């Protein structure tokens, strides 16, 4: 097959270079997190010095805990609410669904700084002290939309037939959702949940605006650390965060396969159609 990019091998070379560009900075972070010296330029020897420092810093450990809690709660709530929203949007053919179909997309394409400011404003207005809960609420707001999109993509490929069959067999409408539809959607729901976990765990901007008296989530802590000096601990924190969120994403990709379907998790996540 011909390509406009002259020959496939040039295309391959170009793609390779882009992957290099994408991975070099990350590799640097990982490699230098094991540096025995403080330098960010020269590797002087391997050590776990910066990891030890991280695990011995109670403030950073608190931040890690906060980040995990936020991501977990966000994952659970937004998965439930988002899945329901997806089901409702696809199944209901009412004016309500039309309006919300559009509204649901808006948080996804709004710059995060706007969402952060709006959240800060509403919490101040209502007199809600900023805490881990305000962060969670802000995270859930945009996470719902992610879940809805992933689940909706899958829902589109499932017809009404199974549910109708279940109802013919005497199931109530609610039972047909609970016993038939949800299990069929399960791979997408789990994948969406894990995706949201990773997004929430990594989020900086929303957390930055809504963080309060509880321990600051890791990204907010990293922000202060970067602004106040060089510390290779950041590399260690970054590497650990990378491990957490990439594990979550890897699970999100792999889990749909565990459900015995010969389909790719990437496909479920990106909503690629059959």
């Amino acid at each position: 097959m011909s390509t406009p990019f002259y020959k496939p091998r040039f295309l391959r070379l170009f793609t390779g270079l882009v992957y290099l560009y994408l991975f070099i900075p990350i590799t640097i972070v990982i490699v230098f997190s094991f540096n025995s010296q403080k330098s960010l330029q020269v590797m002087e020897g391997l050590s776990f010095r910066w990891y030890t420092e991280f695990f011995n810093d109670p403030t950073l450990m608190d931040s890690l805990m906060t980040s995990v809690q936020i991501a977990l709660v966000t994952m659970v709530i937004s998965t439930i609410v988002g899945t329901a929203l997806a089901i409702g949007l696809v199944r209901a053919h009412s004016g309500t669904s039309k309006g919300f179909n559009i509204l649901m997309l808006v948080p996804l394409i709004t710059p995060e700084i706007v969402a952060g400011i709006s959240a800060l404003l509403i919490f101040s207005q209502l007199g809600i002290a900023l805490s881990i809960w305000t962060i969670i609420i802000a995270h859930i707001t945009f996470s719902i939309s992610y879940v809805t999109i992933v689940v909706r993509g899958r829902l589109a490929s499932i017809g009404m037939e199974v549910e109708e069959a279940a109802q013919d067999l005497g199931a109530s409408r609610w039972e047909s959702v609970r016993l038939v539809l949800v299990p069929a959607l399960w791979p997408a729901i789990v994948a969406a949940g894990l995706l949201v976990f990773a997004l929430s765990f990594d989020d900086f901007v929303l957390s930055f605006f809504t963080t309060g008296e509880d321990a600051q989530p890791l990204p907010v802590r990293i922000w202060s650390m970067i602004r106040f000096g060089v510390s290779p601990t950041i590399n260690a924190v970054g590497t650990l965060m990378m491990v957490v969120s990439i594990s979550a994403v890897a699970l999100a990709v792999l889990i749909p396969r565990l459900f015995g379907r010969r389909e790719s998790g990437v496909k479920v996540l990106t909503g690629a159609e059959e």
Partner: protein
Amino acid sequence: MSSRRFWDWFIFPGGIWIALLFAVPLMLVLALSFGHVDDFGRGVYGFSLDNYRDVFDATYVPVLIRSVAYALATVILCLLIGYPVAYFIARYGGKYRYALLAALVIPFFVNYLVRTYAWVALLADQGLINNLLVDWGFTQEPIQMINTPYAVIGGLVYGYIIFMILPLYGSIERMDPSVVEAGKDLYGSPLQTFIHVTLPATQAGILAGCVLVFLPAVGDFVSAQLLGGPDTYMVGNLIQDQFFAASNWPFGSALTVVMMLFLAVWMVFYLRRASKGEAEVL
């Protein structure tokens, strides 16, 4: 319970959540943008257009223009870099397609700050790249790469390119290869075929990618803060400073509203296509 009502109940929790915690706060931002600050520097609601007059003051207009220019440059670079990659994966990826896609997504799930910080370490005067350039004799003195507009745009490209590649991939993959073959017979050269057949066929992906990169890039403040210099102040930085450094929430709100109105054109355009299924969603 009627059929319609039944399904509506599924919509309400999520729909109302988004309405109350996203749409209503946005309205508050709009309301505050007409306000002013009191003696303590607290925002007070009101009915004045002063903040908007300030936004379009000769001092701030360059910041708005700069932000849009950086975001446009980011979009163009993402498209130029992303298209060949998406094309390669979709057409030549074969059985490695999903692996390649997954590899592409991995850097995106490394914290944005950490990724940007890595660029700081790479591009610094005493950083790895400069050290190599000096060692290999390309240059005597380190080249200033950090604290420049190029570094800021580079950071934005690195941060958001995934939003370009995924929709592009989707639309290229969906394209029927036989159309390209037919186009080749019609137009002859691969370049002509590309311009007349492939590009139009993947238009939906291109548009979605451009909008999805443009929107967050305009509002970004991390890249300019960490990689920028004295002349790379973007509207995101300006807004952030109004809320957390200058304590002028009403002016910050007005800036946010103006930015949102400008972006709304693109958002509506995208939403219309997305709701009709003409654009890749993500």
